[in-house]
């Protein structure tokens, strides 16, 4: 699935990321921490887009759920221990994904996309307007599970590597092969006896809980959550990350997240219209690198 060249590149990249805190540079730790969270988030969506063939615009909702749940547990119950809050936040995101996925998967194709978008928007407006969750101002996370920046950074790094390894193994397992079969020809899979909707729902819930993990780490890193996390803009951005990196490759979306973070950071220094730069890069990648950034690593083989 991954060429040896790409494997070497990824291993070196992961080691380089692990070495960053040694520099003691707070800015880069925050910046790369954010980029790695984006990588986890994008890989979790790649499970749906790249492997199960489901384009979901609800993915930001599960990121937001993970983040808001941490803020809620911390503020209301003074809960911060990671061993307690992390499973609760991931389970909460998974429960949200179970409900939204169960309802959305009754529709297919473009209707599925629209239903997932509608759910995200509902949650966004609910959090934006309901007084209990800080409204449009959002909430501070009073007690962070990992307030030490170095600990927070390494938690993100470990999560990134673990999620990558987990998804890689999952996709090689019979479950992953069934998902790939469904992406190829869902109707045929059903007539072979697979309850395809249940498989897709399982993938949706799994991806949702991993998005919740990314949201949890984000809330811990910044100590702050707001309703924009739920916006369709975030769902669109993570989808763009997956396409930019190369859907169906797993490592591609992680690289895409890093690239997007760098583009944003450099772009902001150059011009206030930095989104135009990102737009141009996305168009260029879609036109000239149909397999995304990950395709570059494989290019020499072809």
């Amino acid at each position: 699935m991954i060429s040896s060249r790409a494997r070497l590149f990824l291993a070196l990249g992961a080691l380089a990321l692990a070495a960053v805190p040694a520099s003691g540079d707070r800015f880069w730790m925050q910046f790369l921490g954010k980029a790695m969270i984006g990588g986890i988030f994008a890989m979790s969506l790649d499970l749906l887009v790249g492997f199960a063939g489901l384009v979901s615009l609800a993915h930001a909702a599960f990121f937001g759920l993970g983040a808001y749940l941490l803020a809620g547990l911390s503020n209301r119950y003074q809960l911060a221990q990671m061993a307690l809050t992390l499973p609760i936040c991931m389970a909460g995101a998974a429960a949200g994904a179970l409900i939204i996925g169960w309802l959305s998967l009754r529709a297919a194709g473009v209707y599925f996309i629209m239903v997932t978008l509608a759910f995200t928007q509902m949650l966004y407006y609910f959090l934006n307007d309901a007084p209990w969750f800080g409204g449009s101002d959002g909430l501070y996370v009073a007690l962070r599970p990992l307030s030490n920046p170095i600990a927070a950074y390494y938690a993100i790094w470990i999560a990134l590597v673990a999620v990558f390894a987990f998804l890689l193994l999952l996709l090689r397992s019979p479950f992953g092969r069934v998902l790939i079969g469904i992406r190829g020809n869902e109707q045929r899979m059903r007539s072979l006896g697979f309850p395809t909707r249940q498989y897709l729902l399982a993938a949706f819930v799994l991806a949702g809980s991993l998005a919740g993990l990314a949201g949890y780490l984000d809330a811990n890193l910044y100590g702050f959550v707001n309703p924009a996390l739920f916006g369709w803009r975030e769902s669109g951005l993570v989808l763009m990350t997956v396409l930019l990196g190369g859907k169906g490759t797993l490592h591609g979306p992680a690289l895409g997240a890093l690239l997007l973070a760098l583009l944003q950071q450099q772009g902001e220094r150059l011009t206030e219209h930095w989104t135009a730069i990102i737009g141009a890069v996305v168009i260029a990648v879609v036109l000239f690198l149909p397999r995304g950034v990950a395709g570059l690593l494989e290019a020499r083989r072809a």
Partner: protein
Amino acid sequence: MPEALLETRDLSRRFGALAAVDGVSLSFAEGRVHAVIGPNGAGKSTFLNLLSGELRATSGRVFFRGQELTRATPDRISRLGIARSYQSANVFAELSCGECVWLASHSRARTLVFPSARVAERARRALATCGLAERAGVRARQLSYGEQRQLEIGMILATDPQIFLLDEPLAGLGHDEAQRIVALLQELARRHTIVLVEHDMDAVFSIADTITVLVDGRVLESGAPDFIRQSERVREAYLGSDAP
């Protein structure tokens, strides 16, 4: 008469004003090859789609071993042991032949996480039976059309079915390729029940134990091949052109 494995009672499917299948009551006996023939538009594929659950009947009922499955979903019908093939090869173009039969075989497994040796063995045997053992590593879309039809049958064989619903397995094949499929069907017929929808009359009359002629969604005639061959009504329905 052997026991009826699959049975329809007054089965109908309408598309607006058109009755594609109109009050069909048929019984498919265990261990037999039962062909369903008829001119284009007679409702043969619609009938198969009703049996496999891909279409819902407007009225009437379907029974499998006495159990009603009129409203069952395609995946449940498949798990009960009713397998179907499609008119145009319906394989996983991007997967290898080995992976295609493995997926089919895995549909009967309980395991989600760990690969099962039994699943792999059943897949290997199905691939060997359909004559593609040497092609296990080749992507399905790189196969010839005839080989894709073989793979199609290999896939449903790997689901270990009790009854095969075959939708024109010979359509679009040259003489040699068709011969290979006919030999494969004869091999299957020794141990399995087959419902065969097919236009190739030579093949139908050489394989089938029972033949039903559908015209305009209705059963025109049903009986042994010799009976059908001599039926005046069947001759008329085919306008004498390619009369059996």
